[in-house]
């Protein structure tokens, strides 16, 4: 019962009064800053890191874990309430979460996200504690060819993000892929589509596109509905999920947690893809696929669970190898190093109290979060009652400061304004932005891994089918096209006929 010993070590560390306080403070600060529109989890964590510098290492790590979950959950709150994704994984939360908010069910959406995240967090922490080593070995099997094939699955799945025209949403994916290519080409060093601006060398930041396309155009779209718009909702029916809601979201949470926990271990791709995969799956298995895009609670619960499970298992490569899989993880790793903790293969054996203390405190962080946030839901929902003429300048201000703070560059603000025009155009032409965002994130990874795989194979295309994992993934992609896209193309036509 080695596991129980480890658990005991961890509990002893994490359950001291000080450390519980740090966990609480971290969750609270993370939520409060993360909920500000325009400040995604990455920015939130970066801004709050300095608060942990003065603490003892274990306390600092525990507070950090709290900040991490608080920031992620705060980001989901913004996605649901103001239709603004703060990171890739929230793009899908926006789709149905915001529709629920519009229908007066913001409370239920927020609760579904909180409960789903908590459950998924428990699953993820357990995976991390029990299977860190074998999962790491599995993640290593993913080379460039496998990543390319994984991206292919993600892109095929992206079509399911749209509730309107399939052809148009494929167009949006391609549009997004192209936008993602702006910047220095990794393989050749060529600055592509930068028009002489060095600010574009590292590509366009996610938050710049998201704020422009989602937040700015949403504000303009709301202003032009000349009605006296009180807020987002006219009547708030209930704060809590109904019994029916709970019945519908439970299986979604279970499925989302499993997908997320597995996909999350893949450095780089996992964290962004988990919620997309979960959304596609929910839509596929649902008996009411037509509700998706119009406020289906499964469309919030599944992806949010997947996202949080992935957020846990994404710690696996970071902790066991010291190799961060995402920008957020790199930041967490940097914070650990500042506290003189070098994550890596030996940390489990050389600092067991620290490793297991962190694992247990992750779980406590999740628990704190749900305890903290269920009561806060009432407050967030009240925010929606603030008159819109007061609310939108505030959203605009936070967005502007958030965009600027990414790299302290006013260029990013001008670019966000440009994306505001584009977003408004999309809004007018009924082009859905979610597939574009997925394409935007996957574009560079898709191209890079494709080219890298071919450099490694000396130009031999067969690598994609001779490597077993890659082959399986490609077969899944093909199967998705055959079984999902084709019928939905047919149904597309049917909907056109029947709906109007």
């Amino acid at each position, binding site marked *: 019962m080695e596991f129980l010993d480890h658990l005991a070590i961890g509990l002893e560390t994490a359950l001291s009064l000080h450390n519980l306080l740090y966990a609480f403070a971290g969750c609270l600060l993370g939520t409060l800053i993360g909920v500000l529109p325009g400040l995604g989890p990455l920015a939130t964590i*970066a801004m709050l*890191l300095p608060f942990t510098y003065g603490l003892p290492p274990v306390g600092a790590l525990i507070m950090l874990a709290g900040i991490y979950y608080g920031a992620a959950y705060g980001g989901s709150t913004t996605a649901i309430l103001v239709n603004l994704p703060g990171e890739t994984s929230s793009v899908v939360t926006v789709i149905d979460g915001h529709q629920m908010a519009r229908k007066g069910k913001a409370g239920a959406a927020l609760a579904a996200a909180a409960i789903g995240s908590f459950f998924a967090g428990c699953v993820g922490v357990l995976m991390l504690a029990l299977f860190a080593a074998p999962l790491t070995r599995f993640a*290593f*099997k*993913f*080379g*460039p060819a496998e990543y390319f094939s994984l991206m292919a699955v993600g892109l095929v799945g992206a079509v399911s993000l749209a509730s309107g025209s399939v052809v148009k949403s494929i167009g949006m994916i391609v549009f997004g892929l192209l936008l993602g290519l702006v910047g*220095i080409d*990794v*393989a*050749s*060093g*060529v*600055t592509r589509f930068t028009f002489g601006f*060095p*600010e574009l*060398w*590292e590509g366009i930041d996610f938050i710049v596109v998201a704020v422009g396309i989602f937040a700015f155009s949403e504000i303009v779209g709301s202003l032009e509905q000349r009605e006296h718009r009180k807020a987002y909702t006219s009547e708030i029916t209930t704060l809590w999920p109904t019994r029916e809601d709970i019945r519908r979201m439970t299986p979604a949470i279970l499925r989302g947690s499993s997908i997320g926990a597995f996909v999350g271990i893949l*450095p*780089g791709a996992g964290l962004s893809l988990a919620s997309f995969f979960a959304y596609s799956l929910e839509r596929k298995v649902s008996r009411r696929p037509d509700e998706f895009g119009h406020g289906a609670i499964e469309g919030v619960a599944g992806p949010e669970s997947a996202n949080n499970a992935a957020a846990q298992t994404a710690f696996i*490569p970071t902790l066991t*190898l*010291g*190799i*961060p*899989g995402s920008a957020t993880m*790199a*930041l967490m790793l*940097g*914070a650990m*190093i*500042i506290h003189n903790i*070098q*994550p*890596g*293969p*030996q940390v489990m054996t050389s600092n067991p109290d620290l490793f297991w203390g962190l694992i247990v405190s992750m779980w406590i962080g999740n628990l704190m979060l749900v305890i903290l946030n269920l009561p806060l839901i009432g407050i967030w929902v009240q925010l929606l009652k603030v008159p819109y003429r007061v609310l939108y300048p505030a959203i605009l201000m936070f967005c502007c400061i958030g965009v600027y703070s990414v*790299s*302290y*560059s006013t260029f990013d603000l001008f670019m966000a304004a440009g994306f505001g025009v584009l977003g408004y155009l999309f809004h007018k032409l009924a082009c859905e932005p979610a597939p574009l965002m997925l394409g935007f994130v996957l574009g*560079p990874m898709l191209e*890079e891994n494709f080219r*890298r795989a071919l*450099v*490694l194979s000396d130009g031999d295309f067969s690598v994609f089918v001779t490597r077993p994992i890659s082959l399986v993934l490609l077969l899944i992609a093909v199967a998705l096209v055959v079984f999902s896209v084709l019928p939905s193309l047919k149904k597309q036509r049917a909907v056109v006929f029947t709906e109007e």
Partner: protein
Amino acid sequence: MRLLRIAAALAFAGFANLAVAATDYPTKSVTLVVPFAPGGSNDIVGRYVADRLSKIWGQPVVVENMPGAGSAIGSAHVAKAKPDGYTLLINSVTFTMNAAVQNLPFDPANDFQPVGMIGKVPLVLVVGPALPVKSYDEFMAEAKKRPLKYATSGLGGVNQFGTEVLKKAAGLKMEPVHYKGGSPAMADVIGGHVDLFFSSMTQALPQIRAGLMTGIMVSSEERSPATPDLPTMVEKGLKDAVVNQWWGLFAPAGTPDEIVQKINADLNTIVNSDETKEFLAKDGGTPAPTSVEQFAETVKKETAKWKEIAQEANIKAE
């Protein structure tokens, strides 16, 4: 809390009296531009130096992160700043490499006044399951048999130049595989997807110690205390095969010489301290105090060297 503040005030007073020089610089707060996002090595070293300089000067040294375009955005900002010593830049060896492969919005040779080097750390060549060799000789035997694939953390970065130096000195044929940063490159070496990576010591040490990767050689003049078993390229008879990752301070060109000399002197006080030695040793690095002239010479020589290597190896953004 209060005690701390009093102690800090005393420390200020003490140092301020000692630092009587030809100039009364600085009379107000100094900005140190870190041209990268918080958390990287430049940022960590920069904050360390800024903190110690402000203690010596009794004036705040404010770190300002200006990330973007490699380090081009922050560097360009300093190049255009008023040359009065109140805007400084920390940058690394890549500063002398970028110019060889990319058209930059400033001239690294003429827009800056080098102030002094802070510290340096060698690169270490690591291999994984794709190239199961254990020693320098085994590596060379294999490398002569087939063209190896080496990972880089981006075109024209220190890892690529490190490998190109080896390639040139040993007459090997190797092909680069570019990654976006060191982390994915390392992951693919450990996973056996790519043959080798000339990694920064900091990143590779934990993996080498855990046996996930094998260290083969280091790129410094002498063996590193962090990896005493690994030979240097030079001791194996590869002429001029030296690459160091270093960090240094720069001021805008035209900064008055007495101010530059003063900053250099105070920087060297910090660099020569035991505290700094310990700080850098954590990552396998060593302090590298220089005079203004020595550092300027290093920057000039390296810039020319990378240009030459880039041309020979045809490393260039197309």
